[in-house]
Each structure stands twice: as C-alpha cells, then as structure tokens.
C-alpha cells in the first residue's frame, strides 16, 4: 500500500495566496504515488500456475466420480515420480507427507493410480504432465464396456449379450475416469512452466544417495473444491431447498441440444404421429470426453462419424430436392451420447410422448455412423442387433438396408462387411431406439469386434491419431484446403452412406444415384475446422456474426457440458448443416432474423429455420456479403428425461450431473519445516505475553517511574 506523505501542516503557516501553490504540489505528489505500483509480499512467495485443467466431480444416480480437494486447497511437497517402485517413497518411506505427485503420462496407469488412491492420506494431489505426442501403446480412461447399463442389452432383453459377455468393446479401457479420488488432480502441459516446477523439485526436494531432503522444500497447493456430493438425487435435492439460509445450486445436469434436419420440411407445431410419413433416420454422435474437464478432442470417437454424415447430407442435397424420394431422411446429430445416451434417449422419449412431430411408428429404419476413422484399410463393418433380427420382418428390412449399402460400395474402392459371428451392437444411439421397439437399423463402424480406437474417450484421440498430417510449411489457409488421407478415406465412406440413404429412402433414379458424390475438399475443410482450428475462413463464412467471435484458434472441444452452457460443436454443426442442406433465399436481414419470408408470413417459421450468416468477402473488398440461409435444421433439447420427470434415481435414463465449484487454481511455493513454523508462532506468542506483562508492570508503577522532577509548588506566595 502506498502512503501519502502528510505535508499539510508544513504549509499552514504560509500566507493565503500560497494556497494554490499548496494544492498544486499536493496534486503532483499524488500523481507521483499513483504511478508507483505496490510491491506485494504475496508475489514474492507464490508462483501461480497459468494453465490448469482440473478433474471435476460428476455424479449419477448411484455414484460420484472424479476428484475433490479440500475447501482451502490441498498442500503437498512436490515429488516427481520416477517409476512405479518410487511410489514407496510417497506412500511409505518419505519423511514429509503429504506429497504432491507429478506423473509423466507414461506413469498415468491404473495400477499407480489405484495405489495412490488407497494411500491417499499421504497423497495431497496428483499432477499429470500431458505429452506433446500420443503414447504408442494406447490409453483409454473409459470403461471396458461403455454405457453398459443404459443400452438395450440387459437381462430382460437377452442375458447372454448383456454386460459385454460376447465382445468387450473397449479392451484398453482402464476405467480411471469412473473412479472416485479424494485428492485433486490437475493436468499441465509440457512447457516452460512445468519445467520450472520440475526444476524447483530438483533444486530443493530431490533425494541424493539416501539422505532425506532438507527444509525449505518446494510445495504445491491445488484448489478444486467441488460443491456436490454423494449422488444426483442428493445434489438435486440440495439445489432446490428454499428453507435454508443460503440456497445454492451445487450441481447441474449434463445436456445440450441435438441437431436435426430433414430432407422434407416437418411442421414442428404438429406434434405426434404423422400419418403417411415414413422416415429413415441417419444418426451420428456429437460428443466425447476425457479424464480431465473440458478436454475432449474426440477425433475418431465423435468427429469421424458426424463429419461423414454432414458430407453425406450435403451430397444428398441436390438428389433429394430434384427427384424427391418417397421417404424422408431425418439427419440426427445426438449430443451427450457418452453419458448414457442423453440425446437419443431424449428423442425417443419425445417421440413416445407426442413431443416431436414424428412418432416411433413413423420411423422406417435407422442408419447410424459410428467411429469410421480409417487408418489405411478400406473396409468398414456393418453391425446389427441379432435379437431384433429374430423377427422376420425386421430381418428382411435389415437385409435390404445392408444390400443397399453393399451396392453403393460396389463402384468404389471400398468394402462393407458384416461381422462373421452373431454379435450385439456396439454402444450406439440405435440401442435406445431398440429399447422402445424393434426397428431395423445398422451401425457402421471401423471395427469388426473390439474397438480399433486405441484412445477411446481420452485426450489423445486427436487429429494426430486420425492421420491428418499436413506437409510442413503450409500456411493455415493452405492447410485448410489440403486434402489429407483421412479426408480421402472419409469421402469414400460418406459417398457410400449418401448413396445408401438415397436408395433406402426410396430413390430409384440410377442417374441421380451416380451423381451423388461427396466433395473431398469439403470433408478436409470440416476435419480441419473441427480438429485443428475452428477459427478458419470457411467456418467464418457460414456462421452468423455474433457467433464468429467465439471461434477459437484451437480444436473444438466436444465435451457435452452442463445444460446451461451451450457447447461449441452443437452450434458449429447446426450452422454447417444449415449451409450444406439449405438454400440461399433472397430476403432482407430483418425478415431473415425474424424467421419469415415476407412481412405477413406467419407459417414459414414452423417448417423452416432462417439464418443470417456472415458470408465471405468478395476478392476486391473487405466487407463481408451476408445472406440468408433457409433450411430445415432444428435444435431439439437433449436433456435426460430423468430431470423432467424428477426421477433422479432412474435406471432407465441418464442421470449424469456435473458439480459446481468456486475456484480452480494452483500455486507453488517454498514451505518451511513444521518445527520452524511452531518456533515462529511460539516466539510471537512469547513476545505478546512479554509486552503485555511489561505494560502492566509499568502502568502499575507509573507514579514511581514517571515522577516529574518539578513538584507542583503547593505554596503560593
């Protein structure tokens, strides 16, 4: 704190005409001290961490998963773990517990984490250093059987197929994301800051030749206190108590919006069964996750699927507008599928309860695109549900769909095969439709039995894994336009899907069929935008101006997030789908933004949606030429029905919620030994007591000590 020198009294004896001088000089002093910054003691002690990615707490009907720190942060002496054997130092022999363990990504394994979890009285927290390249042996913190209890395979459907008895879908899964830890866990990038932290460890804490390290030691404090606890029912109940003194929301349900579009417009005010409408649903999933919060690159687990579907939708635009096939195709991009099928369970629920313009009776078949990232091979697998195929009519429809897919793949350099043995469906949105009724459907994946994705739902499932490699020395614009091998492979897949959808929807014109071709330029631009940098010129053209400022210079984050917070991929897919399947209409900005084509148009907003997009700048100017896009793209709420029905212990629907927190931060500092701290406190208390006693003694003997030399003369003459 800066203090002003008090100079007023010095001027008081001056004359009044120097008053103005006084004020001028005071003003100069004030300005001088404002320019000087304060030198805080806190900055000399603590170094704050800049880039902190925490692991947060998620809750469902029965469990809580994730990490928790104490309210005032957890302090631990730094220790860089060298190997699994070195864990002994942390858990048993180290003389200064609790320890803050720094793990390299190679040591972030299940066995080490379980040992740290059981010894958590001596563990203050864990910091994982994220590597700059993917580990070659694979890593998946998800469970081995994803969405085990929320799919269709349960004891009542077919006990032999439940709980991944036939095929373990994610064999590399170590289940770390679904464990509960009572210490904070943060992730740091492998950059200069982390090197500084490790240097602090080597300078102060490192043990050489068996001697124990001397104080002061380098320590770290991590704050990630989560407010919710126990399970979703408890935290939703505590959200809603209005009897308490400080009502506070402690958790929020996960959810967002599904993106839907149809080849023929649907009247969204007319909900329930639509007579005569037969719909083919083309589904893909939009979301992913990883161990840490808000990191979800989701390249193969999410992006490969929905980019293929977006490209197929674009390729079908002309074919479905000119010679309309008799069935409508509904493109559905489901959000929240990672967390027990939030999006698809909501759509099925809405269809069953007449909250959607279609009914389950209107659904003819489902074609879902799962993980289709290809790493060199040109083969995709078509998965079906064996139980529903026992019904002969369903089986017939499934066979027709597979035949359509195969005939679409004939002329291309591609093969589509069914798995050789009777196998249940992998985790997919189709399972939620089958839970409602047996619907013919297939799921296209790039694996025969278990996943080939080595990094399922982890932070390594990124552009590097999909083989999106660009030649060096390309500018971002050139990278955007460069067609990678991944893009070429997905183009083939998308062409097959588009042609199969056309045939499945009843289209029979062979010339139209041949003209359905997916543009690989578009696929590579989409892959670049979602997996490398979302702030690129192609995306900038297709979004409205108020969203354009939210585009970032990094890959899209596919974590579904809480309902109140709208996730970026939902909006991006919505705008992309509108531009790729819609048409440009020549109406004013005012009409466009009010969802009408003319001043008196009241009907269009029920069937179409209008978007005023930024557009591109023509070559010789900098002003963007904006225009209006009319499409059938809608957002439908993807919030689990459990929250609308208030059944927070539901076994049928997803009950995932995310805890709220106050502050997430970390800092490092040097910490003194406990004895030194107690000594300092003791000396301070002793000084206090001594000064009190001294004051008491002096005040009681004040008349003796402070007798003035001159006695007041009593005698007056």
């Amino acid at each position, binding site marked *: 704190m800066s203090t002003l020198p008090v100079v007023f009294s010095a001027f008081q004896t001056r004359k009044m005409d120097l008053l103005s001088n006084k004020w001028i000089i005071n003003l100069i002093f004030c300005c001088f001290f404002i320019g000087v910054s304060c030198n805080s003691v806190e900055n000399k002690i603590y170094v704050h961490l800049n880039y902190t990615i925490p692991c947060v707490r998620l809750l469902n009907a029965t469990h809580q998963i994730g990490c928790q720190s104490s309210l005032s942060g957890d302090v631990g002496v730094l220790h860089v773990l060298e190997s699994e054997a070195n864990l002994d130092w942390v858990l048993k022999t180290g003389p200064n517990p609790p320890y803050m363990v720094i793990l390299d990504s190679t040591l972030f394994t299940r066995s080490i984490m379980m040992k740290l979890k059981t010894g958590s009285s001596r563990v203050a927290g864990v910091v994982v250093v994220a590597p700059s390249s993917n580990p070659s042996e694979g890593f998946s913190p998800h469970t081995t059987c994803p969405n085990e209890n929320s799919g269709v395979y349960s004891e009542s459907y077919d006990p032999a197929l439940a709980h991944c008895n036939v095929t373990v879908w994610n064999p590399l899964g170590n289940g770390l994301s679904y464990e509960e830890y009572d210490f904070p866990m943060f992730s740091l990038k492998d950059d200069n800051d982390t090197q500084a932290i490790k240097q602090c460890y080597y300078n102060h804490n490192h043990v050489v030749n068996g001697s124990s390290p001397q104080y002061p030691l380098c320590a770290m404090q991590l704050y990630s206190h989560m407010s919710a*606890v*126990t399970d979703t029912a408890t935290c939703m109940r505590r959200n809603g108590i209005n009897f*308490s*003194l400080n009502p506070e929301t402690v958790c929020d349900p996960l959810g967002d919006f599904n993106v839907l579009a149809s080849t023929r417009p649907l009247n969204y005010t007319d909900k329930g069964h639509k007579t005569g409408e037969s719909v083919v649903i083309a589904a893909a999933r939009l979301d992913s996750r990883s161990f840490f919060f808000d990191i979800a690159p989701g390249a193969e687990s999410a992006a490969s699927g929905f980019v293929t579907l977006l490209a197929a939708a674009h390729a079908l635009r002309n074919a479905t507008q000119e010679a309309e096939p008799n069935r409508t195709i509904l493109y559905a991009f489901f959000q929240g599928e990672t967390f027990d099928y939030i999006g698809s369970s909501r759509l099925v629920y809405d269809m069953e309860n007449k909250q959607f313009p279609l009914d389950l009776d209107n659904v003819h078949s489902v074609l879902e695109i799962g993980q289709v990232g290809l790493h060199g091979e040109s083969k995709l697998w078509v998965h079906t549900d064996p139980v529903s195929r026992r019904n002969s009519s369903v089986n017939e429809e499934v066979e027709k769909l597979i035949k359509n897919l195969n005939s679409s793949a004939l002329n291309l350099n591609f093969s589509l095969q069914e798995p050789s043995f009777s196998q249940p469906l992998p985790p997919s949105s189709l399972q939620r439709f089958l839970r409602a009724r047996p619907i013919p459907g297939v799921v296209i994946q790039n694996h025969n039995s278990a996943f080939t994705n080595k990094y399922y739902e982890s932070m390594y499932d990124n552009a590097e894994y999909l083989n999106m490699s660009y030649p060096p020395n390309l500018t971002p614009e050139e990278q955007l336009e460069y067609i990678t091998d991944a893009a070429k492979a997905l183009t083939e897949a998308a062409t097959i899907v588009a042609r199969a959808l056309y045939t499945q929807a009843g289209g029979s014109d062979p010339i139209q069929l041949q003209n359905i071709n997916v543009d690989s330029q578009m696929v590579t631009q989409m892959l670049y935008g979602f997996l490398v940098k979302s702030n690129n010129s192609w995306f900038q053209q297709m979004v409205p101006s108020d969203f354009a400022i939210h585009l970032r210079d990094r890959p899209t984050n596919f974590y579904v997030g809480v309902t109140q917070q709208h996730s970026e991929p939902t909006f991006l897919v919505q705008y992309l789908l509108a531009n790729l399947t819609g048409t440009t209409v020549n109406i004013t900005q005012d009409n466009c933004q009010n969802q009408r084509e003319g001043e008196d148009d009241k009907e269009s907003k029920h069937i179409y949606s209008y978007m005023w997009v930024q557009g591109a700048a023509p070559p010789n100017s900098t002003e963007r030429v904006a225009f209006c896009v009319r499409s059938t793209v809608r957002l439908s709420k993807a919030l689990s029905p459990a929250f609308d029905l208030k059944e927070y212990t539901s076994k049928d629907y997803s009950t995932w919620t995310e805890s709220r927190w106050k502050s997430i931060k970390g800092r490092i500092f040097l910490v003194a030994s406990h004895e030194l701290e107690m000594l300092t406190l003791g000396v301070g208390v002793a000084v206090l007591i001594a000064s009190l006693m001294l004051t008491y003694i002096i005040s009681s003997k004040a008349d003796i000590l402070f007798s003035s030399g001159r006695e007041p003369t009593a005698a007056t003459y």
Partner: protein
Amino acid sequence: MNLERLPNEEKLSLCRKYYLGGFAFLPFLWLVNVVWFFREAFLKPAYTEQLQIKAYVKRSALGLLLWVAVLTTWITIYQHFRAEWGEVGDYLSFTIPLGIP
C-alpha cells in the same frame, strides 16, 4: 447495571423477571440470572429478600443444566448422523456444507 446501588426489593424483582423470562425458551436469561445474582444470593451477608433470590438462582441453575443437557445431546446426534439421514437431514438444516456428505 451495578447491583450495589439497587435497593433489595428491586434486586428481587429483577431476579424474578429473569427467572420467569427464561421459561419462554430463553435459557440464556437463566444463565445471566445465575452468574449475576450468584454473589448476591450466596456470598453476601443475609438480608430479607436473599432467601427468595437464592431460590430463584437455584431453579435457574437447574433449568439451565437441563437445557444444556438437551441441547448438547441433540447437537451431538445431529452433527454425527446428519449425513446418514439423507433427505430428513437436509430438510432439517439451515446451512448444508458443500462438498462433504
């Protein structure tokens, strides 16, 4: 207020007011009664009203002890079992701690 300066009748009426007030679920009035009038009741030389003041102080002390016992028991039970009571525990609470059951 300095009790030294009060006449004895006023001391008695004050003691009685505090004693009677404590029955309105106000055990702190009894505590004040005991602490304040202790010297008057037991340590001063006898005067006419002292017997009644003594009685009031004794009864206040008894009531206070009862309240302390009840409150201590309830607070111990509540703090220990609130987490296990689940819904009932939450509805009984004015402030629920964050992040711990």
